[in-house]
């Protein structure tokens, strides 16, 4: 990064990146990657979400760039524990925990809009900049443009016309989460303009879940004979999404509505249709003509693990095979996962 002091750390795909940008900061996602030694267990229970533990490991090891602050979203119990632990291991960091409603009904959207306004005040204090509505609108425009370009790139990968598509797409998602938006958009444009090159066979598979940022994981899928034709991961396509630009309505409400209405993490529920997630998985798998579905979740993620049986049942009704993988944000289980994925593909052939 060119100017590390202008970074704001974040750890959840529900973070309103446009607000961070509007404050004059660049968002920097602390991805659960790298070689930091396992230390989080000194503070948190060992049987806890590996995503949170790996992020804390990086904080404890100082394996992150200099940050002006870090924004945590109150998305689950473990993310709250991360916020607590972070203050203990890095007491000098500016931190803020933003409350995140569990549904997207009008009351929840209004509440979240107020939370985003409070976040804006805090970011304004941290940066010393007055965050005007105009600045926010400009940032929303920039992030909408990023979402549009990423979506275009994703379409090419889904169609199988980009060489090493899913590996390169994940690399770009990681860059979009950690590097200046302008540089990333330039890279995406270059990739979109590359000539078509049909990827080698592979059985079409739909991938969904939560945290899977390591591009090597996508190499593994392809080496086992799977071709990821669409994905829904919080370190992937779920990270960016378009926000309405109708300036006649309140900007915070638009941001809140956009964040809460995009493809939901398992921690967010639709109170009218609690089983919606399973139906969404079936719908997306059918839409991309997937022969099978792989669910990937980090271990001990209760919101995801609790919903997997209903996802399995919904897919079974549709005659779509399902494989559940549980990871720990490292490639240490690669041997066991390889056997499962290969056997799944052999079963589908």
């Amino acid at each position, binding site marked *: 990064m060119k100017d590390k002091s202008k970074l704001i750390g974040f750890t959840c795909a529900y973070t309103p990146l446009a607000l961070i940008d509007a404050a004059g900061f660049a968002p920097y996602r602390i991805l659960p990657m790298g070689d930091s030694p396992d230390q989080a267990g000194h503070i948190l229970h060992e049987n806890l979400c590996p995503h949170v533990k790996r992020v804390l490991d990086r904080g404890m090891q100082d394996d992150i760039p200099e940050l002006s602050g870090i924004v945590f979203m109150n998305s689950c119990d473990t993310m709250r524990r991360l916020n607590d632990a972070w203050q203990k291991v890095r007491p000098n960091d500016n931190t803020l925990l933003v409350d995140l409603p569990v549904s997207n009904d009008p009351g929840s959207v209004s509440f979240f809009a107020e939370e985003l306004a409070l976040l804006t005040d805090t970011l304004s204090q941290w940066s010393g900049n007055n965050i005007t509505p105009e600045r926010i609108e400009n940032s929303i425009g920039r992030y909408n443009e990023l979402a549009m370009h990423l979506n275009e790139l994703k379409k090419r990968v889904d169609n199988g016309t980009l060489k090493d598509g899913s590996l390169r797409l994940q690399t770009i998602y990681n860059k979009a989460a950690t590097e200046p938006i302008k540089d990333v958009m330039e890279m995406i444009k270059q990739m979109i303009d590359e000539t078509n090159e049909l990827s080698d066979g592979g059985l079409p598979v739909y991938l969904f879940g939560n945290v899977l940022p390591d591009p090597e994981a996508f190499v593994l899928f392809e080496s086992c004979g799977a071709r990821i034709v669409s994905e829904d991961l919080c370190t992937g396509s779920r990270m960016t999404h378009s926000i309405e630009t109708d300036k006649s309505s309140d900007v915070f409400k638009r941001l809140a509505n956009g964040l809460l209405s995009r493809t939901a993490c398992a921690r967010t529920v639709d109170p009218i249709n609690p089983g919606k997630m399973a139906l969404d998985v079936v719908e997306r798998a059918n839409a991309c003509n997937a022969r099978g579905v792989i669910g990937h979740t980090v271990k001990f993620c209760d919101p995801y693990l609790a919903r997997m049986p209903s996802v399995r049942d919904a897919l079974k009704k549709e005659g779509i095979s399902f494989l559940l993988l549980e990871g720990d944000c490292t490639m240490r289980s690669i041997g*066991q996962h390889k*056997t499962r994925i290969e056997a799944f593909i052999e*079963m589908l052939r």
Partner: protein
Amino acid sequence: MIVAGVDIGSLSGETVILSDDKILSYSIVRTGADSALTAKKATDEALKNADISFEDIDYTIATGYGRVIVPFANENITEISCHAKGANYLFPTVRTILDMGGQDCKAIRCNEKGKVTNFAMNDKCAAGTGRFCEVMADVLGIALEDIGKTSLEAKKDAMISSACAVFAKSEAVSLLRSGVPKSEILSGVHEAIASRVFALLQRVGIEGDFVISGGIAKNIGVIKKVAEKVGLKPLISEEPQIVGALGAALFAKERYKKG
């Protein structure tokens, strides 16, 4: 046409040599630190038993955890597909297979052609595996091949509350020190293993006929407990350790024919 299937697991390596549909020979060797060497040892022994040379083999398929480092294999296929294929050859009516190997345990469902339709594997856990039985045999000072028979002498099961191999070992040591007969401890251990694998089988659904393969199929104590829970009499081949290698050899035959 002569083909070979080589199964390199965590505890043992097996090779099966087929001539058309007939098993010419097989071998079982202990897995060493070098999987490639284990594969060679197992195959050399099987070749010797069949009185043929390596050059006589037309096609080889490797399976098991060491499948990717068998240097002379033409292809590799997962042990899940191979166990289903091998079990189907031995018992054509099989629909559910429980493979209890050295390092992991797999519940497999297959169709009438021996093609996998669903499967589940135990996670990073030694419970229900050959390694678990080895550890228990060691703690109790009984030869591995005798633990099944010994457990049948028990009048009741000792309570082994943990399904974790590491904790179960500690529990077994405590029970031993408090004077609980070895047979009862082993019976309790086998009950814990059976509970664990029964849960795995329920994930894929159990439908007869039901086959148990892998080294633990030789442990009569575990088999009895699993049969009680499943409610079906398991079919067990004369040599349950070679089912994976046999399946690999059958795949080798198919692939060679296809060209």
